[in-house]
């Protein structure tokens, strides 16, 4: 029941073409050639179109920092930070097949770790005043990763929805902990300042001479997301990633391929929580302030939605899903303006604010109904269409 993966078809088409080409070229001239062609085939962006497309997308992303308004940049920066968390959830859920609703908890652990490390030592909440992002970001990831290792034994005992709901329990228990530990978190209903982002003297939360605060955040998050995405992609195609996929598809057979199941699941949880912790630290460093009830069920669900809407199991799917879910409210806040006969009066029913929420729900439902394989599925569809064109089959 936990077959989430639709992404295994990734890169099939493109890679196949090159594989045969590489071998054909390699055979006559013997091994050295062959060596080189495997290396080429195993390269991440192994075809010209792939390289060109990735290049264009990345350049555009950087270019946006000069083209968009600060407010849009802020939203996109958040989306990128969320994408890091989605990449993490994708590792445990999309890749290793362990559905976790506990992501919000690990995000919280990361956010509080970073906030505590960089917080004001004289403030009303715990703080050590180390604002360098190179210190608090890895620390946030590590502490969350350790929390993941502590939770992992559950995953080795439980399966499917049992695991999902137990990790949901983790969120509730974590929320309780965050509420109660007000020295760290500022307490329920109040909250605390989040991590202070500073890197080599650049303060991200302040407008600078060259770049505004939002531009700086945008660029930072973009770079970090690309780094994390590259890591996730590499992981997926490595020995570890293959072992995760094996555990997901058939855990008993995986064991007889010499894969140590408890270890694989623990590593998956650790890595995924590491991503979550970093994501949590970054998200709230953009917002500047956060409160314990942030790390509730809703946040976990949003992450699951990102991974599923993107198309479970793929890196680009997770990123697309994160962008979709983070940008969706911005979209639904705009849409009601185009719906006639709907009241802007808050006391009327229906009103635009209700419509916003309804649209949010309906878009998610409609989207999955239309394309259950997610955004990635749509992409595959488009690609297949052009490949097969002009023949239908």
């Amino acid at each position: 029941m936990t077959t989430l993966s639709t992404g295994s078809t990734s890169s099939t088409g493109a890679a196949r073409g090159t594989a045969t080409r590489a071998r054909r070229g390699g055979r006559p001239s013997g091994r050295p050639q062959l060596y080189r062609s495997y290396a080429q085939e195993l390269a991440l962006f192994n075809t010209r179109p792939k390289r060109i497309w990735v290049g264009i997308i990345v350049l555009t992303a950087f270019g946006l920092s000069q083209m968009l308004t600060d407010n849009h940049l802020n939203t996109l920066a958040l989306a990128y930070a969320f994408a890091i968390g989605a990449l993490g959830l994708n590792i445990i859920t999309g890749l290793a097949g362990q559905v976790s609703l506990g992501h919000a908890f690990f995000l919280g652990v990361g956010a509080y770790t970073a906030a505590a490390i960089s917080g004001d030592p004289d403030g009303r909440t715990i703080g050590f005043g180390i604002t360098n992002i190179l210190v608090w970001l890895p620390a946030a990831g590590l502490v969350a990763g350790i929390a993941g290792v502590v939770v992992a034994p559950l995953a080795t005992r439980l399966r499917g929805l049992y695991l999902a709901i137990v990790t949901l329990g983790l969120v509730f228990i974590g929320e309780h902990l965050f509420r109660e530990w007000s020295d760290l978190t500022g307490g329920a209903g109040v909250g605390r300042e989040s991590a202070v982002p500073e890197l080599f003297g650049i303060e991200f939360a302040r407008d600078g001479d060259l770049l505004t605060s939002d531009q700086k955040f945008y660029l930072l998050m973009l770079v970090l997301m690309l780094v994390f995405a590259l890591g996730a992609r590499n992981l997926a195609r490595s020995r570890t990633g293959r072992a995760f996929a094996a555990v997901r598809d058939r855990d008993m057979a995986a064991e007889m391929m010499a894969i140590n199941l408890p270890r694989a699941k623990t590593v998956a949880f650790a890595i995924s929580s590491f991503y979550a912790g970093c994501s949590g630290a970054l998200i709230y460093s953009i917002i500047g302030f956060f409160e314990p009830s942030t790390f509730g069920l809703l946040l976990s669900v949003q992450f699951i939605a990102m991974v599923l809407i993107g198309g479970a199991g793929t890196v680009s799917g997770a990123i697309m899903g994160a962008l979709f879910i983070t940008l969706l409210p911005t979209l639904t806040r705009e849409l009601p303006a185009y719906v006639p006969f709907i009241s802007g009066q808050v006391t009327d029913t229906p009103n635009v604010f209700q419509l916003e929420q309804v649209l949010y729900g309906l878009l998610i439902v409609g989207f999955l109904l239309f394309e259950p394989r997610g955004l990635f599925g749509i992409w595959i569809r488009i690609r297949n269409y052009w490949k097969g064109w002009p023949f239908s089959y």
Partner: protein
Amino acid sequence: MLSARNLEVVYDDVVLALRGVSIDVPEDKIVALLGSNGAGKTTLLRALTGLLDIHDGEVTKGRVTLDETPIHRTSPERIVRQGVRQVLEGRRVFVELGVEENLKVGAHTARARMADNLERVYALFPVLGDRRAATAGYLSGGEQQMLAIGRAMMSEPRYLLLDEPTLGLAPRMVENIRDVVLEINKGGTAVLLVEQNATMALSIADHGYVMETGRVVLDKPAAALLRDDDVREFYLGLHPGEDGRKSFRDTKHYRRKKRWSA
């Protein structure tokens, strides 16, 4: 009569799995359907029992009729109610239900005679009777196959479509299944038998079809098929001019050794 005419089936809007297939399963007869892996046998069965939909498949041309009424737009459970029953490839027992519970689900459309039918199935497959309370998922492969066939018999179908029923069965059990099929047929049920074990299938069938890549390439009475040279060579392993099967040790070693000895 259950028939397909010029049936064309497409999966996922792109994979053309059947390319104009026509077959007939007359009442009271056993029809064998042979063909290599991927020829489209299972697809044909799915088309006959309305299961294409859940595999993203679609009948794009041609039609399926039961006693002259088209049924290719009918829902699977209706088709079952009309007496056409398929035993899915790969057993597909409800692994978490008990043996007897599986059989009872099989009787979903024929509750009235459930007790009798249970006895009949237990008589055919005594192992199942011994283990009626056991969880089906823990049965051995062969036992699960028996359960799948038994489950289909629980509703006394008019047409029984068996997809590779002897897969993974011991020789004696294959014989057993052959007898069971014959007996079911004697009871008035027409059988469409999809088999890799061509010897067994043709030994009891009245008529046979051979499929290759989505087409029917041979369509002859079973006896005639048994004499067909191609069938003898490719499906029965009997080569012209040789008497009997040759040993697997003697199969050609072409291609081997190219890079392996390294």
